[in-house]
């Protein structure tokens, strides 16, 4: 979700009427944009990533105008004037940033509103559709400052110098990456390459060093009349979408959009393509998905509210929409226009027979036994760290499932035992009343090459008693009570375990195999957890034992 921010005054100017509190708080969210916050003169909305066309105030206002208006609305129809300018694509860009698309915008009136809108839409498009400029980078230039034709080419990092925006001195491309804040931020996108992309004019002056920064030369100012837009990236379809979103926003402001002739390998292509396109949309399919009984006329009227045309079999999709890829997307537009608040929920009707998971039933029964014996259930994180899991338990480190990129270092492995979790709980609760009897019954992760992901969940039970006086017998009688109620026959076989006091630890044996451990926690372990109360505990693999 991206948060966009608009001046209410500017938004209402585009919508063409005053918007009341109900419009902002109730109506607009029903378009799919939850209100993030509303201040005196500004509103903040969440726009979902499938509608990047609504990052701009022009696009947002266009959608809202139709959605809140009661009557008929004319569908958007965008015209592109014939290309006068040429941009030549040099094959050298193939290895670094292969695609470019451009447009010229004439008759621009630069206002504060326009500048604010341009900055917001550029930033949001870079972040979302552009995947932090990797897939899409946008440059907006004062066309009057440079001389066409333009060229898009890759050059050696030290072979060319220009003054980038916001730094006031001439730098080579390499120096831009090293010295300019934007250079440092986005260097990773191109630095692997031997040559880096630039857009230059007839006199070899640099308009832009995509995806890093534009030149100072073409900075848009209050006196700018005509604009040149370049969009570069790795995916031809996505850069076209970004350009269309920008071009239609300008067109909505009354600017004229003029095509640019992009010449690549001898082929000439006029960009942008602002024509609407078709997606199959069958009324009966839409009705079946939504549970409605619309006729063609009703569906056309609803789609019109979404700026989508309908010719009886196809939806006509405006050029700024990037999200329509299946007839189902058209059905969603119909649903939004109809109003999610107007759908009458039906009574559930699919007759099937319930089937609980035996494993979960059993786990719950086990929890009830433990609570009955007088233990408080705790629920701990699966994610842990080797210090807690092994070092503090005075136990050797064992193989565990490990995460690659945890932002919280204390959550970089998956626990394979529950006892460390219980020790953590007891250590964290030393200021509360004793005795403390706690248990957990839940999942741990063990590595298992036989399983499709290489690791699987195992359900375990662990219980611990902490008190001023607590003995092996206390925990042994807890285990005995549990095992009796669970109907498990077992025996205890003396063992040595570094987490337990020597001579006070045993393996829990069920049907000849060890399924758990029981004993008094070793003082060294208690000290490691900064605990001053003795603890006795057991842990049991429920899946093997039960």
């Amino acid at each position, binding site marked *: 979700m991206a948060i966009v921010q608009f001046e209410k005054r500017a938004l209402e100017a585009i919508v063409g009427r005053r918007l009341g509190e109900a419009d902002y708080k109730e109506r607009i969210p029903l378009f799919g944009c939850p209100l993030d916050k509303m201040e005196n003169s500004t509103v903040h909305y969440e726009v979902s990533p499938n509608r990047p066309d609504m990052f701009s105030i022009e696009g947002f206002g266009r959608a809202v105008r139709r959605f809140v208006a009661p009557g008929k609305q004319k569908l958007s129809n965008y015209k592109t004037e014939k290309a006068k300018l040429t941009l030549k694509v040099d094959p050298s860009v193939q290895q670094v940033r292969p695609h470019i698309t451009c447009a010229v915008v004439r008759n621009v009136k630069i206002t504060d509103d326009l500048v604010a809108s341009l900055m917001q839409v550029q930033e949001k498009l870079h972040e979302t559709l552009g995947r932090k400029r990797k897939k899409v980078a946008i440059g907006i230039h004062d066309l009057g400052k440079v001389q066409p034709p333009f060229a898009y080419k890759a050059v050696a990092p030290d072979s060319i110098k220009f003054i980038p925006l916001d730094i006031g001195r001439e730098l080579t491309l390499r120096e831009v990456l090293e010295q300019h804040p934007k250079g440092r931020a986005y260097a990773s996108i191109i630095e692997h390459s031997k040559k880096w992309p630039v857009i230059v004019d007839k006199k070899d002056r640099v308009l832009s060093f995509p995806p890093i920064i534009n030149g100072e030369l073409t900075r848009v100012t209050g006196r700018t009349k005509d604009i040149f837009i370049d969009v570069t990236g790795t995916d031809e379809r996505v850069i076209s979408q970004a350009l269309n979103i920008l071009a239609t926003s300008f067109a909505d402001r009354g600017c004229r959009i003029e095509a640019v002739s992009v010449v690549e390998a001898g082929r000439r292509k006029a960009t942008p393509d602002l024509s609407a396109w078709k997606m199959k949309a069958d009324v009966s399919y839409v009705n079946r998905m939504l549970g409605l009984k619309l006729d063609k006329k009703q569906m056309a009227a609803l789609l019109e509210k979404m700026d989508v045309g309908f010719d009886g079999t196809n939806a006509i999709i405006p050029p700024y929409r990037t999200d329509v890829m299946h007839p189902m997307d058209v059905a969603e537009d119909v649903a939004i226009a109809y109003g*999610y608040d107007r759908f009458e929920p039906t009574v559930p009707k699919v007759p099937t027979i319930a089937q609980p998971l035996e494993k979960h039933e059993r786990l719950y029964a086990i929890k009830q036994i433990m609570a009955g014996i007088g233990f408080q259930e705790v629920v701990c994180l699966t994610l842990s760290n080797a210090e807690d899991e092994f070092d503090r338990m005075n136990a050797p480190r064992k193989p565990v499932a490990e995460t690659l990129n945890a932002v919280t270092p204390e959550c970089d492995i998956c626990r394979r035992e529950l006892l460390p979790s219980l020790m953590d709980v007891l250590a964290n609760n030393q200021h509360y009343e004793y005795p403390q009897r706690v248990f957990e019954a839940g999942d741990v992760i063990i590595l298992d090459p036989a399983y499709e992901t290489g690791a*699987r969940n195992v359900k375990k039970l662990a219980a611990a008693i902490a008190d001023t006086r607590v003995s092996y017998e206390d925990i042994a009688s807890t285990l005995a009570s549990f095992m009796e109620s669970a109907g498990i026959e077992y025996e205890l076989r003396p063992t040595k375990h570094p987490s337990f006091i020597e001579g006070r630890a045993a393996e829990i044996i069920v049907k000849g195999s060890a399924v758990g451990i029981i004993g008094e926690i070793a003082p060294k372990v208690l000290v490691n957890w900064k605990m001053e109360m003795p603890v006795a505990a057991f842990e049991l693999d429920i899946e093997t034992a039960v």
Partner: protein
Amino acid sequence: MAGGRVELTEEGRRYAERGLPEKVLVDALKSGPLSFDEARKRVQAFDIALQWAKKNGWVQAKDGKLSLANRPGAIPEQDALEAVAAGKDVDQVVLEKLAWRKLVRIESEAVVETRKLAGKEVADMTPELIRTGLWKDVRFRPYDVRAAGPRMNAGKLHILTVFEQKVRRIYLDLGFTETEGPFVESGFWNFDALYQPQDHPARDLADTFYMRKPAQAKLPGAYVDAVRAVHQNGGRTGSLGWRYKWSEAVARQNVMRTHDTSVSARSLTMFRPPFKTFCIGRVFRNETIDYKHLPEFVQVDGIVVDKDVCFKDLLGYLKEFFRRMGLAKIRFTPSYFPYTEMSTQVEVYFEDRKEWLELGGSGIFRPEVTEPLGIKEPVLAWGLGFERPIMLRLGLDDIRNFYYRNDLKMLREAKVLQ
């Protein structure tokens, strides 16, 4: 019986005066054998007398006559009875024998003390008061019955478990089948099968825990080609697809599952329509821990698969679920998920907070999700947050107290009856 008291029973008093029946019998036989009839006439309680005299080896029966076999010296029971009558100390072994024969009554110190209470006001009701009938002779002191007793740290289930059982119960009542899946999940099931493009922001390292070990999963061969096709060009779904080159290597990367919807995706390959499944389980997000965020939390996912279900049915299932949760006021707003259309945010009105709160996402699975997994029918799907409603109900404002710190005071005092 230190401190206790010994009393003769009525029978014991009689024998103390007249002699134990076996003594009377032996005395009668001193002057020669007697027939049974004769002996019975001369000795009261003859059967008891005969039983004990025989047992002690004092008499023998021959040709219908009883005669002395062994003349007893002292009879310790007789001496003891007389000693008790005289209020003297008596050997413990003999005393217990007499008690067993119900000739003496041994009263514990507790009974002795209880007898002293006759006519008085008492605090505690005791077994002695009941057994001796003395409860009739005492008055029970009235208590301040308005005072609450001190709280107990009883055994108790975690509130999360209580809540989970409630939710399970609702889904089972509605005829859903319970499912589960692994926490360590392949990118394939967590993302690709759900039509999330491989460069989707949700797959960024920032949000998702990727695994160093085990780093790679095996892919389910039966579905790989269809999933690849749907990403690249829409496959046979009529979709345009995401139009990029799909990579098996990326799909193989293991993650900590970011949602239970991975389990729903797996379910689509495991059941034949019509079916309904649900899964309550832990999900993971690579987030810094603070009062609002933990790297893991619980979600409940549900799907309904049948040939003629539609958007209205989706709303119906969600409405019914929340109604049974005691949250009757619910609304739906449009939202976005890469794997659903008519994507819907579920908002529930919390009366005490006077606020609409988002509790989860829902929608109808896109054909790009269902067709590659072999499902032709519409699939209603949702994934709902779990902790937030509990926290709101209990007035908790720090999620860490839940299952990060497991604050014992909070857990011990938590209200689990909703």
